[in-house]
């Protein structure tokens, strides 16, 4: 514990990084959802129907009309020169065509180089055109003798009542911040443990460590792991505070989440210790830790699902504990399942844990025995 406290690196990783990065990420997504995305309209019809469509666009909480195009505007370069993310182009003779019973199209050009905007605008465009189209259909059907209810039910014969569960308002803060914090938690715990043993070789304190531990590799590992676990637990509590600070709900699963997080950090501590016991070179072990951990987020299927990746990528993802932790975390934190539902993920995490424990123990045991042999030989 004294070593952890006295190391500048550990202070950076365990104190400054979480404090600065976790809060910064939280503030970035504090708004949670995008509102009033600037859009432009190009009304070539100028009728009551086109004005109704424009009213619908402006009434949507997701969009705000900030520009009206005229024939002078260059549509091909519009998005390069303007901040608006979509153009709703209402064609000439729209109303006339609708009255004559001729289908017409409202063209919606979206600047989809950002998919977050692209998806919202796509959804809104279909919703608005669907609503206006249904309204026009209802009027025609009523004119043909149907009652208002019949006309409505024929205009929308099958209604899909979408019920988003677990994050019903599609809040980006609830979605992204927990994921980002947990992947950084993995990196932090892995990094600090990566230098726990080999730094003793470098600093020349390994012999003292062996002496304190009574020459037992297991004692060294348990002692080191416990001290890192203790500080890691502090980080878990900090994450809980960040959740509460930003009002992120966790389905009253506090105890289950604490258990899962504790197990997760233990896995990462032992993976770090395994590396540290195996490689004497601190920089090399840190390089490996960095290359192993930094793509964990994208490989976990968090933002882009595993089933959309090529086979080898999905295979590689299985060798990162974060992938399995994330499944379990989502089950508890967002879905709110009972603890028993995360057994499969805990089982996989256990494989990581015991493999890392055994390898670390073996490497350390061989090293201690080797050192003892060398000492005996030199004494003899």
């Amino acid at each position: 514990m004294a070593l952890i406290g006295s190391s500048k690196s550990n202070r950076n990783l365990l104190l400054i990084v979480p404090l600065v990065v976790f809060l910064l990420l939280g503030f970035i997504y504090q708004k949670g959802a995008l509102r009033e995305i600037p859009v432009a309209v190009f009304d070539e019809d100028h009728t009551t129907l086109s004005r109704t469509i424009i009213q619908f666009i402006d009434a949507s909480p997701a969009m705000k009309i900030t520009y009206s195009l005229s024939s002078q505007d260059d549509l091909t370069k519009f998005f390069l020169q303007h901040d608006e993310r979509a153009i709703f182009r209402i064609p000439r003779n729209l109303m006339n065509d609708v009255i004559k019973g001729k289908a017409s199209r409202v063209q919606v050009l979206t600047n989809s180089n950002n998919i977050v905007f692209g998806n919202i605008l796509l959804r809104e465009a279909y919703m608005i055109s669907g609503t206006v189209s249904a309204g026009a259909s209802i009027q025609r059907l009523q004119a043909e003798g149907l009652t208002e209810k019949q006309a409505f039910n024929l205009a929308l014969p099958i209604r899909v009542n979408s019920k988003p569960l677990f994050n019903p308002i599609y809040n980006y803060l609830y979605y992204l911040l927990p994921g980002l914090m947990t992947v950084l938690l993995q990196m932090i715990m892995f990094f600090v443990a990566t230098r726990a043993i080999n730094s003793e070789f470098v600093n020349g304190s390994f012999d003292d460590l062996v002496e304190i531990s009574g020459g037992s590799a297991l004692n060294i590992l348990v002692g080191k792991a416990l001290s890192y676990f203790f500080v890691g637990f502090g980080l878990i509590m900090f994450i809980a505070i960040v959740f509460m600070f930003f009002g992120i709900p966790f389905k009253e699963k506090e105890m289950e989440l604490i258990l899962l997080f504790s197990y997760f950090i233990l896995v990462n501590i032992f993976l770090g210790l395994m590396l540290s016991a195996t490689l004497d070179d601190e920089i090399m072990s840190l390089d490996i830790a960095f290359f192993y951990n930094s793509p964990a987020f994208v490989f976990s299927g968090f933002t882009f699902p595993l089933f959309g990746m090529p086979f080898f990528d999905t295979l590689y993802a299985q060798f990162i504990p974060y992938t399995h932790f994330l499944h379990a975390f989502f089950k508890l934190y967002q879905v709110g399942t009972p603890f028993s539902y995360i057994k499969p993920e805990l089982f996989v995490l256990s494989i990581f844990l015991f493999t890392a424990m055994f390898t670390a123990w073996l490497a350390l045991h061989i090293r201690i025995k080797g050192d003892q042999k060398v000492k005996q030989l030199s004494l003899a």
Partner: protein
Amino acid sequence: MGKGRNKASVFTNELKRVIDDHSILLTVIIAPLLYAFFLGSIYYKKDIDQINFAVVDYDNSMTSRKLTQLLKANPKINLIGYLEDYHEGVEKLYHLEAKGFLVFPHGFEKDLFRLEGAEIALYLNTTRFLPSNDLNKAVNSVMMTAGSGIRLKYFVANGKNPQQAMELINPILADVRPIYNPLNSYGGFLLPGLFFLILQQTLLIGLGESVSRDKEKGILNSVLVEGGGIAHYLFNKTAYYIFLYSAYIVLFMAVVFPFFEIPVAGAIIPSFTISLLFLLTIMLLAVLVGSYVNNQIRMMEILAFTTYPFFLISGYSWPVSAMPEPIQWISYLVPTTPMLEAMSKLFIMGGGWTDVLGPFQHLLILFGILYVAVVVRLGWLSRRSKAQVSLHTFSR
């Protein structure tokens, strides 16, 4: 001739240093290409299909079965089976086996035929946005098509000829055209930003480590005091990286982007110039940060945690305007912000100089600020070292 030889030795000096230090070697030589292809491969298909969903059919009618067949035929979604009831559907969601399930209620067909309004419920697992959005879109699209078919039958039955009926079924349609990302795909959106982030982070970490190591080993102070001063050190340090990362820019534009079918739509000269200015700015940032940390390992540890914040604060995925004002100020201080804006306009949207003047000026200002900061910082280190040397000589 002599000057030319000097420059060549400056260049080879840093090259030797990179080769000698496996960490820097790994970061600036191997990582950029490895990461580009390794991480890029995740999004190779760019979009997702075969999203798992299930059906609870309480109606068990011909219509509900026909609609399920229509859903099954949609390549975006994959029917994993019929379920007994709502609770089994919830279980599937609990186990994250399905991204959603559809419930046809009792009397669905009857309500539909009597024009009494038929409703189906689609329960979505929104723990991840991409698959749930796509499933929602796919189901709605199939049901809209089915609804159009019903109206078509009604109009034909009421004396309209099929062509007239076709015109009447959807009086107004939305013709949505996602520009610059025609498939509205996640890969098409993320990959260009990811590639620049890879270049930025490997350069920042590699050069930052190299400067920290110079500080740790006293090389920085000795070059500043005896070896020709700040300009000499800066040139000495960055010349090799300028060459290497200029080559990367060309390689990424000529090979990596086309390999992943990402268009390089804009003019080449502004694209290269602004990318180079960006990398020079990152180099100054690396030198500045590195000059404060006199331990290579610590430097790596710190910079490893800048990747996510730099990317997320840049406004590439979440608009800067949606962030709180103090965070917006920080965002404008990060070179990633103007670079990714310029990259979008040049590479993806096919713009030219006039379209990226704003981000170019922004980058130029950041370059200027960082240059002054580096000169002040190295000047201070140089003066301090000289003072220490004189004190040491005096005390002797």
